[in-house]
């Protein structure tokens, strides 16, 4: 056999092995532990959640980000390992009798890959912007839309503790009213892929967060698929015993 072919065969064998997945998971755990230790002590992480991950990665010093680059590298290998193992499993075992038992781990793997895709999409395309607004303030959103903060309402307890808050926002395009929405705690307003959130409130004024999170639908789909596959596999294993 030619040396090149044997090297390729070796790589394929490694990618087909569950043992490879174990070692990759171990190394990934190591990188994440390093990240969890570094995160509270290095000031660079103060801005990590303020922009898309890849933008932050490009700007932050390598002494703060080395573990994340390592983790991304391992995730790429884990993705290849998952894809190759899943394809091999589906090609080898097609008998109908144990179909659900064979397919359920692949559903879990598909969910995992969708979750990674979600993070990739968000890491590249997420955007965040803070806006301080008073009642009547007007802002230009992407797509020629204008948002107006019509009113801000804060309910405060007798001890001065904010109990609830609301801001009414309205969207306009070319002078035409599109819709009116109420933003509150756990209640954002969504318009054309942009979420409007309240970050802080004062009487008559509000600090808004405009957020675009393009990976969110993929993350939800991946998480649901992952969990359904897990529950299915668990139920099948319990029933089989």
């Amino acid at each position, binding site marked *: 056999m030619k040396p090149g072919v044997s090297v390729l065969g070796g790589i394929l064998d490694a990618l087909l092995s569950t043992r490879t997945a174990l070692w990759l998971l171990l190394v990934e755990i190591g990188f994440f532990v390093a990240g969890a230790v570094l995160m509270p002590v290095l000031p660079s992480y103060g801005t990590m959640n303020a922009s898309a991950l890849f933008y932050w990665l490009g700007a932050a010093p390598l002494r703060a980000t080395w573990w994340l680059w390592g983790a991304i590298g391992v995730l790429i290998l884990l993705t290849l390992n998952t894809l190759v193992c899943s394809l091999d499993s589906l090609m080898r075992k097609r008998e109908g009798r144990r179909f659900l038992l064979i397919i359920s781990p692949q559903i879990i793997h598909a969910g995992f890959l969708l979750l990674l895709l*979600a993070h990739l999409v968000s890491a590249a395309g997420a955007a965040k912007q803070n806006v301080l607004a008073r009642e009547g303030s007007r802002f230009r959103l992407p797509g020629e839309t204008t948002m107006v903060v019509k009113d801000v309402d804060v309910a405060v307890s007798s001890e001065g503790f904010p109990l609830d808050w609301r801001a009414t926002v309205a969207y306009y395009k070319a002078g035409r009213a599109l819709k009116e929405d109420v933003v509150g705690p756990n209640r954002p307003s969504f318009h054309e892929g942009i979420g409007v959130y309240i970050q802080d409130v004062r009487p008559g004024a509000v600090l808004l967060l405009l957020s675009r999170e393009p990976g969110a639908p993929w993350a939800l789909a991946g998480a649901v698929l992952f969990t359904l596959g*897990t529950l299915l596999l668990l139920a099948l294993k319990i029933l089989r015993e």
Partner: protein
Amino acid sequence: MIPAAAAFALYLVGIVSRPFVYAGFLLQSGYLLYRGALIGRLPLVGVHDTLNFLSASLAGFAAAVYITEYPERKFLSACSGMAALFTVLSLLRPPHMGPLPPVLDTHWFELHVALSFFSYALFGVAAVLGVLYLRSPGLREERLQYRVAFLGYAVFSISMIFGGVWAHLAWGTYWLWTPKELWTVLIWLYYSLYLHARLVGGWAGRPSAVLGTAGFAVVIFTYLGVGLLMKSSHSF
């Protein structure tokens, strides 16, 4: 605080006498229901309430496993001891009584936290089964540890979905880069490692049982260590 102290005493006696474990579980569950009625929501904010919730969940799952699958006295004794430990730790902190921050006033939060603690409790039960297996290896303990940890993993995954949905509605992102989130992913990666390890020669048996047992230390550090020591959206 008095019912929690009484539950601690019951779990302590439960180490040697089984009915006291059930009594401790019922008393602690009643205490949590009372706390819930008092504050008008599930009591899941602060160390006192969450430790009591974890203790009751652990005792409840242990009793269920004991009754349906594994009627071994030493198993229930070990779980009762663990429940007693978490309950006595809860007495070191007063219950949270102030108004709830509006961002926590949502069912997504309650589902996220309740399911997280159910999964932590299941990982705790799995750790006890792992210790029993390591002390005297038997197929039954190893299989049961796997099933309980797998159930914990599934529940944990669902709790992460709810947490992601909640974070997206509250903060505009389903994922925040904080130490707590990283440790949460570590739990997920760690138990993924454990579940896969059982399938591979050389990792199956004792090594995977050790992984499944040590995983509970990662869980407890993520819950108490990170929650108390590091600043994040999950700080107590």
